[in-house]
């Protein structure tokens, strides 16, 4: 099927892997060279398409981890029953190529220009990825908008971007739900309403809230924030589901 380039059309582009970063035992970041890719906004995602030698194709969506203006980075978590993620996490090496198109999504996005409301970011597991793009952009832009990240992981080994988060220039609060290392100073339970009350900017500050993670996590956080008096219209959610 011939496809012609039309304004606004998202054509499939060839992405070349230039580098990989092992973030955790289950998570890897791919740095990609995609010459014709349009600039993105923090929070957006791309569609990845893999093609096997017999022509079989599989498509999945992945959030962009990099700040706008930086080389495109996708951070991918291996889902054990997944079809695409094990290939991206375990098999791909620099020099490999696959297709992608994007950037996609115009709602779960944040831009520092003109932003005045504090941002409260809540991540469950690999839900950190699009929120990291926002924090990186905020840092790179020298934005003074108050920012707070609440990040829930199972164990310390599962914390993605562990080192970079220490100097991201935002208030980072972590909870480890399954096991904690000796001397752990953070929270040690699933995010609940009391934890949100402790950590979130108060509703009076009218923070803009971005929540990303598995469905049950996002449901619990969004409902908790609404119960605490945050306006539903200020809460934007992105949920991971399927493989």
């Amino acid at each position, binding site marked *: 099927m011939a496809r012609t380039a039309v304004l606004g059309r998202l054509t499939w582009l060839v992405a070349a892997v230039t580098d990989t970063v092992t973030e955790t035992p289950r998570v890897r970041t791919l740095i990609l060279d995609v010459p014709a890719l349009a600039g993105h906004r923090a929070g957006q995602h791309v569609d990845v398409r893999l093609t096997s030698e017999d022509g079989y194709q599989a498509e999945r969506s992945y959030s962009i981890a990099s700040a706008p203006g930086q080389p495109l980075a996708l951070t991918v978590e291996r889902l054990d029953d997944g*079809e695409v993620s094990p290939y991206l996490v375990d*098999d791909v090496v620099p020099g490999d190529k696959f297709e992608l198109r994007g950037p996609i999504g115009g709602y779960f996005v944040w831009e520092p220009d003109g932003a005045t409301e504090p941002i409260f970011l809540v991540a469950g597991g690999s839900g950190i990825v699009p929120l990291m793009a926002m924090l990186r952009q905020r840092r790179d832009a020298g934005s003074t908008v108050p920012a707070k990240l609440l990040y829930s992981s199972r164990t310390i080994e599962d914390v993605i971007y562990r080192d970079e988060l220490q100097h991201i220039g935002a208030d980072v609060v972590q909870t480890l739900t399954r096991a904690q290392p000796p001397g752990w100073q953070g929270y040690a339970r699933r995010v609940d309403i009391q934890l949100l009350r402790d950590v979130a900017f108060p509703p009076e500050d009218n923070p803009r809230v971005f929540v990303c993670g598995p469905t049950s996590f996002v449901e619990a956080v969004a409902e908790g924030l609404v119960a605490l008096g945050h306006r539903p219209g200020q809460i934007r959610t992105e949920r991971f*589901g399927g493989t």
Partner: protein
Amino acid sequence: MYGPGVGIVSRGFRGRGRGDDSGRLPPGQYLTDDFPVLSAGPTPHTPIDEWSFTISGGTEPVTWSWTEFRALPSETVTKDIHCVTKWSKFDTDWAGVSVDTLLEHVDYDRAYAVAYSDGGYTTNLPIEDLTGGKAWVAFGYDGEPLEPEHGGPARLLVPHLYFWKSAKWVRGLRLLDEDEPGFWETNGYHNYGDPWREQRYWGD
């Protein structure tokens, strides 16, 4: 052999097949047994006694309370559903009121509709795609009341289009002369959303 696309080969990628060879899986989709959730904000919880469904844009607006809505003739249907995020689910069982049944009560001469929901969500459809046994206002799933996270108490069900057209927490339809793109349709997603033509995004 698997459809369109330039498709540079990804070294060493085999895949495991799309989980289906019946011809029921649209291009770019994979089969799942889960029922993933996609929504842009918190789940609204509207009490049944505050719920109503309104169709405006006819000679006069028509509104049903929950009790009146549930007294309308309903159907159970079994449908394949396809989400733009790539998952498809076969043979999902729904109970709902056909949009044909609702529109029997409305005197209108319009070509387009916008479905609107609690929480502010909207999505647009040609009325042609809501009529002729193609769309329902569903209140039941798998023999149970529809759960809030899946759109309960009632959601639109338009299974022949990508599932974002099946607005969760739906509260009414506005019938219009002109097409009026809704929430995702103004945020980069396709205006019509036919999974068989893989109309995911603007320009597809």
